[in-house]
């Protein structure tokens, strides 16, 4: 009798476990589907809002990414393309300064802080010293001390890494609206 009870309990436990697992798995899949649907809605919302803003302005915002870490650069560039920006990437502050010396213009610059050859704050100071006062410069760093260095150099704003997509979208909207106002 005791053995039969033990067997029944064991079978019940096994069935219950399978049932719970199935329920958890079903909930997990349902959650994954809902998550995917929300992602698609967010994607369309972001693309349409920046697209409308830049269409009013007549051209896509031109962004310069100054970043030596490849992974960070790829992610930031992808985000900017997703937000309909024309984005250019360089690997250090000197290359960024060289672009400005060549007469290239940008609406917004995203610069990392610590880079070989020339750091972000140093490049920002040189770009401002050239008279490029209209371009919006965003200092980006994982170091909390980066804020002061960038702001002293002449950056407009500082954001800590990793940069979020909604943060970029907000910044680009400000840039685009200022461009629209200045004609």
């Amino acid at each position: 009798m005791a053995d039969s009870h033990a067997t029944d309990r064991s079978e019940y436990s096994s069935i219950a476990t399978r049932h719970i697992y199935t329920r958890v798995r079903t909930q997990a899949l349902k959650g994954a589907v809902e998550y995917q649907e929300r992602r698609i809605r967010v994607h369309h919302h972001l693309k349409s809002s920046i697209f409308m803003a830049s269409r009013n302005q007549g051209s896509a915002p031109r962004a310069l990414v100054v970043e030596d870490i490849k992974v960070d650069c790829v992610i930031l560039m992808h985000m900017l393309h997703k937000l309909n920006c024309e984005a250019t990437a360089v690997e250090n502050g000197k290359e960024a300064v060289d672009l400005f010396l060549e007469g290239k213009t940008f609406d917004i610059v995203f610069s990392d802080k610590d880079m070989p050859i020339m750091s972000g704050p140093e490049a920002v100071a040189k770009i401002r010293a050239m008279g490029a006062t209209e371009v919006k410069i965003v200092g980006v760093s994982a170091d909390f001390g980066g804020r002061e260095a960038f702001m002293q150099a002449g950056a407009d704003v500082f954001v800590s890494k990793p940069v979020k997509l909604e943060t970029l979208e907000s910044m680009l909207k400000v840039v685009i609206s200022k461009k629209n106002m200045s004609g």
Partner: protein
Amino acid sequence: MSAANQLAALIANMFATGLLDDQFQQLQMLQDPSAPNFVSEVVTLFCHDGERIIGELAKLLDKPTVDFDRVDAFVHQLKGSSASVGALKVKNTCIQFREFCQQKSKDGCLKTLETVRINFYELRGKFQTMLQIFQVGGDVRGGHPQLAMGPVGDAGASDPRLFPQEVIQSGGIDGAACWDDAYSTPLSEWRN
């Protein structure tokens, strides 16, 4: 178990064991039909760069006189890329590593390098499994393996950081600060 379920279970496990944080979900959000391989490309790049950096660190720490500035520069790179892909354990170990660099402690650096190596290769192994399942899932599901690459259950669905639309609609872009840390500059304080 289908490829989608395997992928969901693997990613859930990586979150649960602290290998990944919500930054990885940010990457997943960036993947779309116009860039269907975005996550796998970033992950592959991270693994490649990480391996290179660990090799350079081993060489530098093997020298009789250690150039701690160069060591710190490499650790900074690994920390940065780890943070960008959501590699939480590796990132946290890099933070400790940098402290030993600043203290110029060779022993501390060597011990932490070993921890970084263990954490990195654990993560790389899981990423490689993820990519293999992703490829299989992609073939089987006609290009929509992303269905499996979301958070498990409802925990992720309620996280506002995963859904920029909710953040934007809550008033984050009309001049009020929308950054989620104390060090970024609010929009209202932009120059000009």
